[in-house]
């Protein structure tokens, strides 16, 4: 593939010339990640420069069509680009629910007018989006959502409440599931709307988690007016879009459980607990648990690899992502339980400098949500039982 080699050489040269050195180090904290949006304050000139240059190339979204501000790259080219960015240590120029979630949905379900209007803004990081899916009384049964949108002629009138809205307090716009036909069956009266978070009647409230501060909010809608042209797809067919996006989200969360970049647990434990004269971890029972974990984790990483290869080869069941989500998140919880065990009481300090403000404990607590968010482990097991194993409904 001579073209791909040329592309690789060119991409590398461009990255070397254009990626500021400060943007070639891993983000140290939340602020080092660029989320964009109307209220965004760049951390540094380099962060701004890097975003602007990548936007100009269309490489904040390398595979989107150039007509909408994308890079127009093929899947293979995009893969090469990502590999080159990784090899140079380039940071992501823009993190965005617009790119990860809304964009794919608009590309598939949006009108041409909506694509031309919203997608370029997303690629440039001009609008920061949040996702209005979950509701307090819905939980795993997402489709039972109650936030209603009444047809008022030229606009919808929105009333209701969302929960687990990530960065709702920082977002400019929301993509939101609402009930437009309360009389229909629960999956058939839902629509997918976009609207401005500064609209009259929108308010947000951050959620404190057991691990401490979080990006999550409760979001309230009190007689919010939304123009009708902000409906995406067909009225009352929003559940199709939701399902499409949920699969995306599942893949993302499942892959977080990979843990490939993490230090081997055995080493971490040996550092805090020491080893015997024979070089064995000083806690023999913990050693057994860690060996068991590392076997499972390694095998899971191989499964991520195999699932990726199957996808590329056009093999495999799409519901397999539920296996990855289920196992990956349970594995990640196990990892953090073992880290806590290795850390002992040192890791239980919540506010000291010594414990980096309880970092290990907070991470541990945070992992408990892994098997809840993006579809609970129970929901994933239901999916596997039905869509892969073909077991009958109850």
């Amino acid at each position, binding site marked *: 593939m001579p073209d791909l080699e040329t592309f690789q050489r060119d991409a590398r040269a461009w990255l070397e010339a254009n990626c500021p050195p400060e943007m070639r180090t891993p983000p140290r904290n939340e602020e080092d990640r660029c989320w964009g949006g109307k209220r965004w304050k760049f951390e540094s000139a380099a962060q701004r420069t890097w975003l602007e240059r990548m936007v100009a190339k269309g490489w904040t979204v390398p595979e989107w069509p150039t007509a909408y501000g994308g890079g127009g790259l093929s899947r293979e080219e995009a893969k090469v680009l990502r590999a080159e960015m990784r090899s140079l240590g380039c940071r992501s120029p823009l993190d965005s629910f617009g790119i990860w979630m809304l964009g794919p949905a608009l590309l598939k379900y949006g009108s041409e007018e909506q694509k031309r209007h919203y997608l370029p803004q997303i690629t440039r990081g001009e609008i920061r989006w949040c996702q209005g899916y979950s509701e307090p009384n819905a939980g795993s049964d997402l489709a039972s959502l109650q936030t209603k949108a009444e047809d008022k002629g030229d606009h919808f009138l929105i009333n209701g409440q969302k929960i*687990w809205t990530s960065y709702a307090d920082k977002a400019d716009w929301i993509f939101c599931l609402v009930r437009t036909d309360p009389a229909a069956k629960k999956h058939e009266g839902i629509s997918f709307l976009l609207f401005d978070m500064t609209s009259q009647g929108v308010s947000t409230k951050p959620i*404190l988690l057991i691990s401490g501060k979080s990006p999550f909010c409760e979001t309230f809608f009190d007689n919010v007016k939304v123009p009708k042209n902000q409906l995406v797809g067909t009225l009352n067919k929003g559940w199709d879009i939701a399902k499409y996006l949920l699969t995306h989200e599942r893949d993302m969360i499942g892959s977080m459980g990979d843990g490939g970049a993490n230090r081997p647990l055995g080493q971490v434990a040996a550092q805090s607990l020491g080893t015997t004269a024979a070089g064995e971890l000083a806690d*023999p*029972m*913990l050693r057994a648990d860690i060996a068991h974990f590392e076997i499972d984790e390694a095998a899971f990483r191989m499964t991520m690899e195999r699932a990726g290869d199957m996808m590329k080869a056009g093999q495999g069941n799409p519901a397999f992502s539920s296996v990855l989500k289920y196992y990956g998140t349970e594995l990640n919880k196990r990892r953090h339980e073992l880290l806590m065990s290795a850390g*002992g009481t040192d890791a239980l300090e919540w*506010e000291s400098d010594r414990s980096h403000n309880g970092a290990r*404990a907070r991470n541990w607590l945070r992992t408990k949500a892994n*098997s809840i968010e993006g579809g609970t482990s129970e929901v994933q097991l239901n999916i596997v039982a039905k869509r892969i194993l073909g077991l009958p409904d109850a």
Partner: protein
Amino acid sequence: MALLLTEEQTMLRDSVRGFLADHGPISQLRRLRDSRDPVGFSRDLWAQFADMGLTGLLVPEAFGGTGLGHVEAGLVMEEIGRNLTPSPFLATALLAASAIARAGSVDQKSTYLPTIASGKLIAAVAVDEGPKHRPHAIEMTAKRHGNGFVLDGAKAMVVDGHAADVMIVAARTSGTAGDKGGITLFLVNPKTAGTAIERTIMVDAHNSARVEFRGVAVDADAVLGDVDQGGDILAGVLNVGRAAVAAELVGVGEEAFSRSIAYLTERTQFGKTIGQFQALQHRAAHLYSELEITRSAVLKALQVLDDDFANATAFVAIAKARAGKSSTLAVQEAVQMHGGMGMTDAFDIGLFMKRARVAQELFGDFNFQAVALAQLKQY
């Protein structure tokens, strides 16, 4: 003896249960935590404990206590666990009182036991130095100096160490880290020069401290028991602590479980009460079995401490191991079954998970107890 509570014990449990639900509920823990209370427990509640005779539960009647047993101590700990009540009960009324009552001189008993029983004295026991419970690994030294000793070393995870009026400190008078012998216990006034106390804010908002001793001089009569013979006393004290924390974990685990069952019967999803889903039913039934089996092991250990204190180690190890494991399962299932709500600080369930994690470490986690048991059974 039947593996059941006696009538008196049942009455005590009921009275403590009602009392703590009223006067030491989780909202109290939240208030102490959120106001960053410098003491971290309610002194009023401790005074009420004294009025009820609980502060002197293990103190012989001759020294102003009620002279009850370990089963009774476990009942109180269980209710403390159920309500996540921060209280000096464990360190002062159980660990310190047990150590002094069993090993103290007549003078030491007269000095400390009545004030413990009256609720006037807060005590702490300082054993561990690293992140894991390893009582034989003590490195802190006590060197003879004139008539007394000079203490040097640092202790971690000293429960109530920031509030203690007296500390029982385990230090090495001979041997090296890893030796079973050579440990001596000292009664130390934490105001003595050279003592530095740092209160550590823990994940569970319960009380703990790190304590440093730099050339801390103590008199010969500060020795509790005999020089170099502290290991045996300590073994007994730690068994009391393990069984007590196991009982607390029974309370933590069962309360988390009963809240989960309540949630399963309230919450609806997909048009059903989630408690109707068989997969959750089976997990709940399994967890119930685990908790009941733990309850038996804990009661057994407490009874053996009452009947045959010197031979309780295996029973206590089984109880603490089981309590650590099954309460961990209970809080994990509780958070998962509560879904997203369980992840919020506004819900109580996460507080149970936090306390269970700390209590799992206290006086040896599951792995520690399992190794101890394998060693006892010679394999």
